[in-house]
């Protein structure tokens, strides 16, 4: 989707940028006219507030969090505050609860994202190709996306509560939310219901890039529907699929709201976000809570890094913005 917003000015700047890289500074300074300098200043000025807020509210706290994670710091015993280097990391990483939560988080992430990819693709095809009621389908699909997660979680909780819920009564007579396997399934179900439409919308954006002529040509050549899907659509959609997977994976890894409402982490259904929250709010242990914060940050960074390696040039920002 190239849009003709590239004004002559940008092209000229691109050229001068290319020249600057080859020649030393002197030439570059001469090439900066008064107008260009003003443009730069305006650009910085306009971006400064947004950049400042973003950095101040994320970069500083995460560094501060690292600093806190090196200390024994329990708000119940503030006088025992002490610098302990990496002792907190040893405590957390040798703790069974942490690894259980880590496993639960990975399980929820992998299963829900995999199911969402399949369902999201199906929903994207329906939203993109349906012959009738396109507006109705899109409107309905946006409701799970927009609804407050806590509201949806309560709906699922009551649906599975014995005697209150329509689903609990359909099935056997247990209390599904109090057994680990069924509780985890319900958490995953709630996640899938809530975020499949988002996945589908991102995939639909990729679907819109598939040239209709190509599909027609393929079908003339005798390609079956499945072949058209795997050989024509999927390759064109690859960047969109990777973006959708990246965003949903990172989002799923942060799962908190659904678990909080559905089980409150009982029966070993806590995610890493849940136990980090509990350590802080119930345990009032800033040192351990911060250690978990840093570990979750690292885990997310690793996931993002792996995805960006997979992306290559298809990473959002790199191909579009980075070129300039």
């Amino acid at each position, binding site marked *: 989707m190239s849009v003709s917003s590239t004004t002559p000015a940008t092209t000229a700047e691109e050229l001068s940028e290319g020249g600057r890289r080859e020649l030393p500074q002197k030439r570059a300074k001469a090439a900066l006219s008064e107008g260009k300098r003003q443009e730069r200043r305006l650009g910085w000025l306009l971006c400064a507030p947004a950049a400042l807020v973003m950095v101040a509210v994320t970069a500083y706290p995460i560094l501060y969090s690292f600093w806190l994670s090196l200390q024994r710091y329990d708000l119940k015993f503030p006088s025992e505050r002490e610098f302990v280097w990496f002792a907190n990391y040893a405590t957390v990483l040798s703790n069974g609860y942490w690894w259980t939560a880590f496993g639960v988080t990975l399980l929820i992430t992998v299963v829900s994202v995999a199911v969402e990819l399949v369902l999201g693709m199906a929903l994207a095809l*329906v939203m993109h190709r349906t012959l009738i009621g396109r507006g109705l389908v899109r409107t309905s*699909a946006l409701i799970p996306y927009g609804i407050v997660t*806590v509201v949806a979680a*309560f709906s699922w909780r009551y649906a599975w509560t014995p005697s209150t819920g329509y689903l609990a009564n359909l099935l056997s007579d247990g209390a599904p939310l109090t057994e680990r396997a069924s509780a985890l399934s319900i958490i995953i179900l709630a996640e899938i219901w809530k975020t499949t439409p988002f996945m589908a919308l991102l995939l639909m*954006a990729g679907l819109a890039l598939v040239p209709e002529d190509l599909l*027609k040509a393929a079908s003339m050549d005798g390609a079956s529907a499945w072949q058209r899907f795997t050989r024509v659509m999927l390759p064109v959609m690859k960047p969109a699929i990777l973006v959708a997977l990246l965003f949903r994976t990172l989002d799923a890894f942060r799962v908190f709201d659904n678990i909080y409402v559905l089980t409150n982490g009982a029966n070993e259904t806590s995610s*890493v976000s849940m136990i980090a929250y509990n350590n802080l709010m119930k345990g009032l242990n800033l040192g351990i809570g911060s250690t978990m914060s840093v570990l979750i940050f690292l885990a997310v960074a690793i996931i993002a890094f792996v995805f960006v390696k997979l992306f290559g040039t298809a990473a*959002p920002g790199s191909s579009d*913005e980075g070129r300039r």
Partner: protein
Amino acid sequence: MATLDTGPRAKLKWGLLDAVVVVFALIPVLWVVSLSLKTTATLTDGNFIPREWTLDNYRLIFQTDQFVRALINSIGIALISTLIAVVLGTMAAYAISRLDFPGKALLVGVSLLIAMFPQVSLVSPLFNIERQTGLFDTWPGLILPYITFALPLAIYTLSAFFKQIPWDLEKAAKMDGATQAEAFRKVIAPLAAPGVFTTAILVFIFCWNDFLFAISLTSTEQSRTVPVALSFFTGASQFEDPTGAISAAAVVITIPIILFVLFFQKRIVAGLTSGAVKG
């Protein structure tokens, strides 16, 4: 697949698929509505459709300070955060899509990083920082993180919209004798407004939705938002089951979302898909 087929059979097939999607999307919402309309006696009968209807649950929650106060907090905090995020986002997105300056790629990169940032990692440090600065349990204490996490969304969506605006029209208007201000007000602003409006909706939904920050950075009714208040509901008395009240409150905070989706479906879809695939 029906790429070429548009006959009645294809229509029927798509109609059935549509129906599956609609049912799948709406059932959990209808269930909460149903629960909120049940009487206390029929609340636990497990019927999807209430046998006895009542508005008591709604009457009850609007009589409690707990809910009304939380609703005011939710609306106020979400509106202020949206306003600030959209203003700052518009400025940055304009610069990204129109101006050339060093550090542009860096800003885009930073916003992408923040879009992927695990919010729970900020809970511990922000809790302590806000406790020490007096921001804990106040509106600004929630507005700040909301703006931060809404900005990447705003910047991406707005840049995508701004890149599609034919900016040469501005030049043309000036050549026809319009001043800079007139050119902006009469030509550019009307073209940019839909994008800004769409972004505002997406940002509002994001702020309206948040639970993690709201539950970690508040402690009293003074700044608790509705999603958090819901999880603290106890019913009229301590021994009363709060299911009905929670359901009614849940329906109330779902109404704005339903309205947005009903009236601005096309814009929301355009906004979500435009910023997403620029690769």
